[in-house]
């Protein structure tokens, strides 16, 4: 009853505060802008990949038609260039593919790294990345998406609305008057927090809901959308609880402001950057420079072994030597050289993957040090932009590449021409989504525990809070 009265009274005060409405409008407007920017960013990437896919499909169809015409003509001597498994696999056919988007991907478009490659019969270390060319200056500044708004900006608005929740009343001398009305300090404070919390979280939830519907449609609401809103809500609740706790420290409003701003700095900026530094220091990626020289060394050795075959004609210019046999020998040598190189550098590539996995695991463990990191990792997973999903996709691409390249390798080795039926029956890439994208129980629970711990401590401290 008393809480309702305080809420009503507080609402009257809040309603006439332009700062609140400006902050709320800014937050919701920025959320909408971030969702639109994320959608546009993903659109650019998808269009780039789709254009490559379209070109590859047209090539695929043209190859089948060429082979069919040749097969129908029945002239074995007039084989088209694409009947050569080497020419077809190493120079003509490709399968471009991208990590499929999930409904809420646009909300994390700037946080995750788009994954798109083109698979050919060349060895995996020669797999080409596709997509848009990025300006390093933009990447260095970081991206703007809904995750950023939630993790970075929402706490600032919450701090601005709550840093003087209690201290200001004490400074103005109005706190004893309020208590004299028969309202307990606990009810008074909780009602004020509740009022502001409902306003901010409702505003964010509405903006989030609109963003979710806009980028993913109604299908995105369950379960992705709901879990997303829940994690964002719990993260917001943490900041409200922290602000309440700081207000019970019996300091002045400006001191509360400084402490909360410092908390924001430490939890949102410093700890994540330190975790990044620590994970990169403890599990550094092997040197790409070393990888480059190793590939080169391995290629040189493999080429030396195949020197006799190569020196019969100019490297990479089989047409200068003439003769289909020489050309097939050339393709075989390219393939074998690449396989030798791939086998040599496989342990190094594996250590790249291992270190990345270890770094990722460490970041997940250390995320409990910062609610910002915790919320960020959870939201990133819901949006399907996390490292674990990208790793699962890369593994699937690796398996697909192995199957695809082996088909060509077998024919290149045996110098058997390719038929239209075989091209039609080439494998198609498929990716089965890892389960548990929305099972963000761990981060959700930790955020809840942190918020409750702060809230309970704050309420306990209120009992000893001086009214005057």
């Amino acid at each position, binding site marked *: 009853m008393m809480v309702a009265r305080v809420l009503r009274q507080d609402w009257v005060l809040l309603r006439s505060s332009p700062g609140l409405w400006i902050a709320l409008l800014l937050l919701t407007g920025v959320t909408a802008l971030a969702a639109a920017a994320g959608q546009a*960013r993903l659109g650019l990437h998808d269009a780039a990949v789709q254009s490559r896919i379209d070109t590859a499909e047209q090539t695929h169809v043209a190859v089948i038609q060429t082979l069919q015409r040749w097969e129908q003509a029945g002239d074995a001597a007039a084989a088209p260039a694409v009947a050569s498994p080497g020419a077809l696999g190493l120079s003509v056919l490709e399968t471009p593919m991208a990590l499929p988007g999930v409904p809420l991907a646009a909300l994390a478009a700037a946080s995750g790294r788009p994954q798109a490659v083109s698979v050919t019969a060349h060895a995996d270390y020669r797999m080409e990345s596709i997509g*848009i060319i990025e300006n390093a200056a933009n990447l260095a500044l970081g991206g703007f998406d809904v995750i950023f708004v939630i993790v970075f900006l929402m706490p600032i608005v919450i701090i601005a609305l709550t840093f003087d929740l209690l201290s200001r009343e004490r400074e103005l001398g109005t706190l004893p008057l309020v208590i004299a009305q028969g309202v307990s300090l606990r009810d008074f404070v909780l009602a004020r927090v509740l009022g502001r919390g409902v306003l901010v979280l409702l505003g964010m939830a509405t903006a989030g809901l609109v963003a979710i519907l806009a980028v993913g449609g109604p299908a995105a609401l369950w379960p992705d959308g709901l879990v997303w809103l829940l994690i964002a809500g719990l993260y917001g609740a943490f900041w409200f609880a922290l602000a309440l706790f700081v207000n019970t420290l019996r300091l002045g409003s400006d001191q509360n402001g400084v402490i909360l701003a410092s908390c924001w700095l430490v939890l949102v900026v410093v700890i994540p950057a330190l975790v990044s530094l620590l994970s990169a220091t403890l599990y550094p990626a092997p040197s790409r420079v070393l990888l480059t020289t190793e590939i080169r060394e391995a290629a040189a050795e493999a080429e030396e072994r195949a020197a006799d075959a190569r020196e019969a004609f100019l490297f990479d210019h089989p047409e200068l030597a003439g003769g289909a046999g020489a050309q097939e020998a050339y393709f075989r040598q390219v393939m074998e050289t690449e396989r030798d190189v791939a086998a040599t550098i496989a342990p190094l590539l594996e250590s790249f993957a291992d270190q990345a996995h270890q770094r990722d695991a460490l970041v997940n463990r250390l995320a409990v040090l910062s609610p910002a990191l915790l919320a960020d990792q959870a939201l990133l997973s819901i949006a399907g932009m996390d490292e674990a999903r990208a790793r699962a996709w890369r593994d699937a691409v690796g398996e697909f590449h192995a199957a695809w390249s082996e088909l060509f390798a077998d024919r290149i080795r045996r110098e058997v021409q390719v038929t239209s039926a075989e091209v039609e029956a080439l494998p198609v890439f498929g990716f089965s989504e890892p389960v548990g994208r929305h099972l963000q129980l761990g981060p959700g629970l930790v955020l809840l525990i942190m918020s409750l711990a702060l809230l309970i401590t704050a309420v306990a401290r209120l009992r000893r809070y001086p009214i005057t």
Partner: protein
Amino acid sequence: MVLLVARKELAIVLSDGRIRTLGALLAVMLLMAIGAAVQRFGVISSERDMAQSLVAEQWEQQGEKNPHAAAHYGLYAFRPVGPLTFFDTGVSSHQGVSVWLEAHRRNFAEAPPAADLGSVARFGEMTGAFVLQTLLPLLAILLCYAAFAGERENGTLRQVLATGVRPLQLLSGKALGALGAVMVLLLPVVFLAVLALLFSESAISVLPRVVLLTLAYVVYAGVFVMLSLGVSARASSTQAALVMLVGFWAITSFVVPRIVADAASLLRPLPTLEEFRQGVEQDLQTARDGRSVDEVIRERRQQVLSLYGVASEDELPINFQGMVLALQEEISDVAYARQFSQLQARIHAQLALHDLATLLSPRMAVQRFSAELSETSLDAQQAFEAEAEAYRREFIALLNRDMTFSARGGQVDYRAGAELWSQVESFAYGGRDTSRVAAAAAPGAVLLLLWFAGTALFAALAVRRTDLALR
């Protein structure tokens, strides 16, 4: 009078626990970042030097082969790192560190370090520049937000003004005191950084840049000192001043740069890799006055045959295939130069938006200046890639000349050996000359000074109000 006020302010702020805590945090983080930078500089610098020598060694020991096979084997150019690279990684984490230099094509730089950093790296790399760019403003705000508003609330501002001190003198004194405090906190770290640099011979040459960087960050702190003093003079309360300043800091340091990055990439998008490749293909097809490469080669063949008065390539005293390769190289050089310059133009169109946004974010101004002096800017990368490309053209031309003049006409089994390979000098990046660095860094410096002048003017106008002590 100004110095008196400054001394008093300095004494007050240095006795403030919050300032000491934040100052200590800043110093510890700076030391950690600089320590990590020194260690990474040592490791990565020697690694790249070693890789460059290894590539040169592999090149020399590649055995006998056709020069064009060697041209396809190619060379690598590794971008050397400077002593300040890890103080401010600038955009270098997102740029490739090596370029494969081979026949017929200009490749993009490969292996940007950010690709191996994981998703958490987007929160920011803990470098010295990151710490200074994000924490210095907060320190300045804490030093000054209550400078006028606090004294006004306590009633001491009226007393101070009654002593005859003019508002501008008061402002200057408070600004000097705050900047003095910043220097007290910053200089020991700068001194340690310089000490660390002195251990490396190559690093001594960057000492003038360290001085300029220190000045730039002091000016950057000065921007926030003046802004905070101005806001403090005009705000209705210390709380209002604090909220405004922290909001300004968070928005201009963290939000504006990200919005700008997204706006630039969406409003002025770069081509896709596919479009870039197609552009090159198109240019290669219509290389010379709309004629195809094959037509150009046919015409050149006729010219050469008639010049030597022979009927076939086999009768030529030179190897025509070598000439064809040189011709193909000329054509592809033009095609790649055109596509790369178009790409650069589009990147610069995006950077123009960044420059515009620098007027909204002092952090972006200091970022630009700092990255230029640390050799981690886009311009520094472009200079490296341009030098690598010039080197590529030179050594490919040398190989093609050898094939043309050393092989017989029509000979396809010609081989060259160590003598030719040794004529290709190892790639050694000379770096940008001082005038280029100065030209690239000047806009950042000017924008930063504009910010300082603007905020100083704002503060001066704010304290000249007649109701300074009364609001």
